[in-house]
């Protein structure tokens, strides 16, 4: 497996590199070719042709786009992500690293909640298959999935902050109790997806011989469900983490706006609107690389924890 696994990881990463390059070129050209650049935004009402010319020279916007791209990529590969025009020439790293930390922490909380809720729901739905409980359970989570976060957030803020007065809406750091509501709002739409896949997985495992054996041994039903059924059915769920990430990112973008959380979701929206070339590019490249690497890691981990999956044979190629 070692040889095959190494080859598999290498193949996956090798495919990611050209695609990430294409993404970077497309986004770079889109940003540069659109009329209106950061200099226009910077000067705004005080626009002066001469000052604008000087600023464009300073940031290199007066050069042909392909030269700008080559220079940019050369810097990126050396670890220099450029400067943020929106944040008075702070380096992109200084601008985004603290925000990434905030968003990543929240995203991690949300990811945990999605699985902590989704897995039991899926198991329960699978076990009550054939009764109305199963479609009702899955159906109600599908309903939560159907509510856009920018709608549910208003309702939740009204209910919990204005009506019940359980929480206030200020942001006081990611480890403060005020973070509970935003994190819940990010995670709830993702639960249905995890629950459905878990349900399917449990239904597949339920017919396996070792479950029958466990029951025949006279184990308590609780033990059978928790240690035999759910544990084995959970293995494929590892790969679902990758599918859940984009949803969590999208959710946190909206939620960060509503709760005034200084994360990358909000920053990316502001950067796209400004436009703030280097920040947009850094976020796109960082996000894309992170997601690609995460998916490869997840597949590899899955191969390790479930030796029945021979990566080379079933998933490579």
């Amino acid at each position, binding site marked *: 497996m070692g040889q095959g696994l190494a080859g598999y990881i290498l193949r996956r990463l090798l*495919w990611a590199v050209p*695609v990430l390059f294409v*993404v970077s070129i497309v986004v770079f050209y*889109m*940003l540069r*070719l*659109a*009329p*209106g650049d950061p200099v226009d935004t910077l000067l705004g009402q005080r626009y002066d042709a001469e000052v604008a010319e000087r600023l464009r020279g300073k940031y290199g916007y007066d050069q042909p786009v392909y030269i700008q791209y080559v220079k940019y990529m050369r810097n990126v590969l050396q670890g220099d992500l450029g400067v943020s025009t929106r944040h008075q020439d702070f380096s992109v790293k200084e601008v985004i690293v603290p925000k990434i930390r905030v968003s990543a922490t929240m995203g991690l909380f949300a990811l945990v909640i999605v699985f902590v809720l989704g897995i039991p729901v899926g198991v329960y739905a699978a076990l009550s*298959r*054939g*009764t*109305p409980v*199963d*479609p009702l359970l*899955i*159906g109600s989570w*599908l*309903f939560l*999935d*159907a*509510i*856009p976060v*920018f*709608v549910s957030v*208003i*309702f939740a*803020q*009204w209910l919990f*902050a*204005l009506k019940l007065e359980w929480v206030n*809406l200020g942001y006081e750091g990611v480890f403060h109790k005020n973070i509970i509501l935003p994190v819940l709002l990010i995670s709830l739409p993702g639960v*249905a997806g995890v629950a*459905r896949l878990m*349900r*399917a997985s449990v*239904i*597949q495992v339920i017919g396996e011989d070792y479950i029958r054996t466990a029951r025949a041994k006279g184990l308590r039903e609780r033990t059978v469900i928790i240690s035999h059924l759910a544990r084995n059915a959970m293995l494929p769920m590892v790969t679902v983490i990758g599918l859940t*990430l*984009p949803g969590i*990112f*999208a959710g946190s*973008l*909206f939620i960060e706006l*509503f709760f005034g959380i200084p994360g990358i979701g909000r920053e*990316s*929206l502001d950067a*796209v*609107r400004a*436009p703030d070339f280097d920040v*947009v590019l850094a*976020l*796109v490249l960082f*996000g*894309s690389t992170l*997601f*690609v690497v*995460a*998916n490869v890691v997840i597949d590899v981990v899955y191969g390790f924890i479930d030796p029945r999956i021979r990566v080379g044979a079933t998933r490579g*190629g």
Partner: protein
Amino acid sequence: MAVNVGYAETNAFEQRRAPRWRALRGLARKKVAMIAIAYLIVFYGAGFFAPVVATHDPNRQELTVETVRQGPSADHLFGTDALGRDLFSRVAYAARTTILFTIIVLLTGGVFLGLGLGLLAGYRGGWVDTLIMRVGEVLAGLPTLLLMLAIAAAFRTRINDIAFWLEDNTFLGDDAPTLVKFMIVVGAAVPFAWIGSSRIVRSQVLAIREQEYVLAAEAMGASTWRILVRHLLPGVLPIFMVGLSGGMAAIAGAEVALSWLGLGIDPPGSSFGSLISEAGGVRTFQTFPHLLIASATPVILFFFAWNLLGDTLVDWVEPRTRGR
């Protein structure tokens, strides 16, 4: 092949089951699917016939203290918004945006790219297959919303030039700016709309391309095109449509989200995204709840209906997970 075996097993198995739960469950399932379909028909009908359904001009403002933010009444079924515009009519036109958007993205991203690339990858195999599937795999793993934001924002700044040109040189007139914004959102969504369906189509093609009738057609010298369209396509279509129905909510959701952010369709065009964002924040909701409820409920039910339908259909093609 595998699917057929699955069905046979299920049927044999079902006959041995107590019919009580099965009937109830079957009824619940079917009823749910029927209600979902009924709602979708109403939604699509309302959107398609928006000019007929709308009781008022969706853009006519009535700016007096009595006419803005009215609650629902016989004259204004969903009440009026902050500018005194009839919300029911605006919702009908927003439904029109949604159905146009889903249909266009379906045809381009779903059918043209998803079905086309899936058939190609599955039938041709080799490097074509590898290229399509690997690119799809990486695209699927990207932060879609961020890329859509970048695409939409980059192109939005140049809409004025294009829109004015269209206004002057085509029959579109005043609709031109909305059309251009619309196309930008389509352009932002399509690159990500084909991945799921092409994957499903490919795996189904792989399953049926070795069947005797396909081999026979090949042996008789049928052209690639003929084999794809006459022999593979019919076998692929059902599962393709299941895949699509599962992805519809996400496709429509992309437009709503972009419009909410102000990067999609905005007034005078109607979109659920801009309607919801105009409904205001939590303070406005406290005082005028009908603004948010009236603009959000129709589209939430739309997403929900597609989710339910997708869920039911997945069980139908994947009998092993079906409630028995």
